């Protein structure tokens, strides 16, 4: 079974530029998550989708971050404009459904973003 795919794996941009990350979840997984992992920290949930609807985006900085999952399959996360503090690894995860008690989250390898 193929895992969660993410691209690119690495990205270096200058501040105020824009960047987009792509995630393809495991086939059949209805729930998709984007996490931000700053160096020395644990992952922090940015946004969670159930099919193509948003479940939770309470920690997404909406003035600069946006995410979509138009067809309920793959997803893109965009930052515009980027700030130095956005340097982090962006992890995508997916699960069959909602509910931590029932459905394991499977993580992709992440995209490492460096903002200079």
């Amino acid at each position: 079974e193929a895992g969660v795919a993410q691209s690119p794996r690495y990205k270096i941009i200058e501040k105020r530029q824009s960047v987009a990350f792509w995630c393809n979840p495991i086939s059949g997984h209805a729930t998709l998550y984007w996490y931000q992992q700053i160096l020395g920290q644990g992952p922090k949930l940015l946004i969670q989708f159930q099919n193509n609807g948003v479940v939770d985006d309470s920690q997404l900085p909406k003035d600069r971050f946006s995410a979509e999952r138009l067809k309920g399959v793959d997803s893109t996360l965009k930052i515009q404009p980027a700030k130095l503090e956005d340097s982090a690894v962006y992890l995508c995860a997916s699960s069959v459904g909602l509910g931590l008690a029932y459905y394991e989250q499977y993580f992709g390898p992440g995209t490492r973003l460096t903002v200079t």
Partner: protein
Amino acid sequence: AQSVTQPDIHITVSEGASLELRCNYSYGATPYLFWYVQSPGQGLQLLLKYFSGDTLVQGIKGFEAEFKRSQSSFNLRKPSVHWSDAAEYFCAVGAKRTSIQGGSEKLVFGKGTKLTVNP
């Protein structure tokens, strides 16, 4: 708010030695608790989880963890560490959302403990 504390940023052990990684949580009710491992350049992999029942939980790769409600702890253990266990380990709690926030739960992670294994 729910939170997780991993007191040890970095631990070094010798190969073959026993291992215990500490995790303390803050949560009002019976928590869902998890341990994940992250190898360099890899995503997180679930080692084990606790929801209810037996407080000693067995996981993959020979790991186990014990839930102690009185101490608000969920420490990860392994009797004999292998060089391939060198990685970063994250403890997480499943934090319930309100119905306004969409219900279900979300993972709240600790800051992680980096494990180095000496030959």
